[in-house]
């Protein structure tokens, strides 16, 4: 589990690598929150192209980050989910709060 970030123009890109489950969730929360702390961006794009596995614990992690950003008025988007992650996002209606972009 690894979280990489870069800021380009007004967007913070968070790229999640590896497997996101109950075991890695604590680290994922901490690593994402560290990047989300500085306010030098106007939107967040969470890139899941390097995510190898995710279960519903991952949905909880995403909702947590979304709520923190919502308080600051910053929208969060999901990009490049695997077909499997996409199924879980659809099932849990996550795209209604964090739309999928390509």
């Amino acid at each position, binding site marked *: 589990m690894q979280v990489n970030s870069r800021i380009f123009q007004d967007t913070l890109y968070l790229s999640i690598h590896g497997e996101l*489950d109950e*075991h890695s969730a604590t680290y994922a929360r901490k690593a994402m929150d560290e990047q989300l702390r500085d306010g030098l961006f106007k939107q967040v794009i969470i890139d899941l192209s390097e995510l190898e*596995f995710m279960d519903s614990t991952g949905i909880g992690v995403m909702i*947590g980050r979304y709520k923190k950003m919502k308080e600051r008025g910053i929208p969060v988007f999901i990009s490049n989910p695997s077909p499997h992650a996409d199924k879980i996002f659809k099932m849990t209606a996550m795209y209604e709060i964090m739309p999928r972009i390509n």
Partner: protein
Amino acid sequence: MKFENQMQLKFDSLSINESFARSAVAAFCAQLNPTLDEITDIKTAVSEAVTNCVVHAYPKHLGEIEVWVGLNAQTVTIKVKDWGVGINDIEQAREPFFTTKQSDERAGMGFTVMESFMDTVSVKCEKNQGVEVVMTKKLHGKKTAVCGG
């Protein structure tokens, strides 16, 4: 039901064992020649069931989790069992977005994911006897080339 092949794992209720459990079940099911999609469905369902045991079954101490897998023709049967505190209301626990641990950022979607990715999911819980989740899935497998004459 008779099974042509079965395996059983028993491990401590540590979250680090989740990836071990789902990978071991996936490796065992590989002999049925499943598609990548089917394998990912199974891995995710196992991960959900084992996570429930890790997070909910043993709040005060470490406990044991058992995962049993039986294969019969193209159907996989998976049993995930713990000997923990049990579930108060199974119907409620199976509802989408229901969680007893809202403050922990939990989605409450574990059973919903299991139900979506497997064909059947049954939950048994007797007071102070822990929880047993049994899931089945029929695999259609990869299409293999047939040599015609």
